[in-house]
């Protein structure tokens, strides 16, 4: 019995930005085994399909998981309406997470918008060995920079309009700079165009790169084959893998960009 379905109590709720919420759930059994990059599948009450949400914090000691998500539609809106003391129906931990490299001296965590939250468990693992580059459209969307710093990561915040952070523009410029100095691994989560650009830069420099993908999902466990991702195998042959079970984390070179 690998998966747990349970009703977990919300022990903390915070608004991080407009339409972006942080929830901390009490779920000791799941927190004990969850890995960076995995996700939880949450059922908003009254809906037929669950919502996959990446894990933004794993605290095995206190038995809690942290989830940070943006309101995207009616389902996430219903979830965002829950409060401390309410319960969330979740299946977790799901999916295949990030590969942790014990010997890495310097890794770069690239998060775009609501792709920043899954970088937190990596920042916790790598501490001062991590540089977190986060990209946002504008100042009101900026989230989690203090959290990343508190975990020891160096942060580079980018906004497209320059209203916040040290960099005006995309995450790729500071990433290119870091890659030229030598990096052991790059981990990325965010919009597809960003991931594509990050993967291309890493491939050019021969840097190990993993990306966390998103897709519309039904079962969440690999049975329904709904969340297909176009990949190529070792022989270059195309095949569809599935974000829920084979991913959400894939090696960048596996993905058909």
């Amino acid at each position: 019995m690998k998966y747990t379905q349970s009703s977990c109590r919300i022990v903390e709720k915070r608004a991080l930005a407009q339409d972006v919420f942080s929830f901390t759930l009490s779920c000791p059994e799941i927190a004990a085994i969850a890995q960076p990059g995995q996700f939880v599948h949450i059922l908003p009450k009254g809906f037929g399909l669950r919502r996959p949400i990446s894990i933004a914090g794993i605290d095995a000691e206190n038995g809690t998981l942290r989830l940070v998500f943006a309101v995207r539609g009616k389902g996430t809106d219903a979830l965002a309406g829950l409060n401390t003391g309410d319960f969330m129906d979740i299946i977790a931990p799901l999916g295949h997470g990030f590969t942790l490299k014990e010997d890495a001296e310097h890794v770069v965590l690239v998060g775009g918008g609501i792709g920043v939250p899954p970088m937190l468990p990596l920042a916790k693992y790598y501490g001062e060995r991590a540089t977190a580059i986060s990209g946002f459209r504008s100042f009101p969307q900026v989230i989690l920079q203090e959290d990343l710093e508190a975990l020891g990561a160096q942060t580079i915040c980018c906004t497209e309009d320059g209203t916040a952070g040290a960099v005006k523009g995309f995450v790729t410029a500071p990433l290119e700079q870091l890659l030229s100095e030598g990096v052991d691994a790059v981990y990325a989560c965010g919009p597809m165009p960003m991931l594509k650009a990050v993967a291309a830069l890493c491939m050019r420099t021969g840097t190990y790169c993993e990306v966390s993908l998103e897709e519309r999902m039904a079962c969440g466990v690999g049975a329904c084959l709904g969340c297909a991702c176009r990949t190529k195998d070792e022989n270059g042959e195309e095949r569809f893998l599935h974000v829920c079970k084979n991913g959400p984390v894939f090696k960048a070179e596996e993905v058909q960009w």
Partner: protein
Amino acid sequence: MADLSVNICGVDFKNPIIPASGVFGYGREYEEFYPLSKLGGIATKGTTGQRRTGNIAPRIAETPAGMLNSVGLQNPGIDYFIANELPNLLTKDTVILANIAGSTPDECAEVAAKLDATDVHMIELNISCPNVKQGGAAFGTSCAMAEQVTAAVRKATRKPLVVKLSPNVTSITDIAKSVEAAGADAVSLINTLLGMRIDIKTRRPILHNNVGGLSGPAIFPVAVRMVWQVANAVSIPIIGMGGVTTGEDAIELMEAGASAVQVGMACFTDPYAPVKIIDEMNAFLDAQNIASVRDIVGTVQPW
């Protein structure tokens, strides 16, 4: 404790609940939640002669009280299934219905012939997949084609043959009669209803395939109606499905004429849905003092 066992085409089921084809893969994922032996049976992912990669994502869209899917029969092919999945499934103490599909009657017959040489309990022939260009629904929407493909598969196997019908037809009873005449031992219905959603800002269909199959509670009343109509039109057993979410839904479909019930989308909402449905059916029958679930099949009293 009511007697939940049923018998369809000579095959004993410990209870009438079967996860539907396409939602349950080959059982491995849901076995991480509960032992598969709790289930009456399992309808396996639709399997074709050769491996199929399926459609480009997005393949899933949520809809009011339901969902659309356009997976497109992604599967590893019948040889892989027989070598790597079927032996494992046959150890699970539950009835295995191998769901098969193909682009031509010959391909369907070939797949069935390969299964005939195995210990699989039943074959469910899908003539109603809305998500593939050839075969699939095309077989299920014309009486002549439905009859032809059923007859071809009938010739290829002596296994109990269930033919899964499409609701996207003018008269499902005519199709049911055609496959009965061609040698089907049972029919299962309904497959998904063809549907579509559009992202109104990008003006793109949500599904990359543009259209897909609608399932879930939204289609349950259609399933009840069609099961009832088919029950009045054929003399072979019916496996009912379409939006069943609770034990009460399963009872309703059986009163309409189904001898067993498949559960689809409800597995996504709650992976334990099939097991809960079995418990709820038992509770209902006990509360009504009904000794056996077999006593309710087709007992609807129409006005």
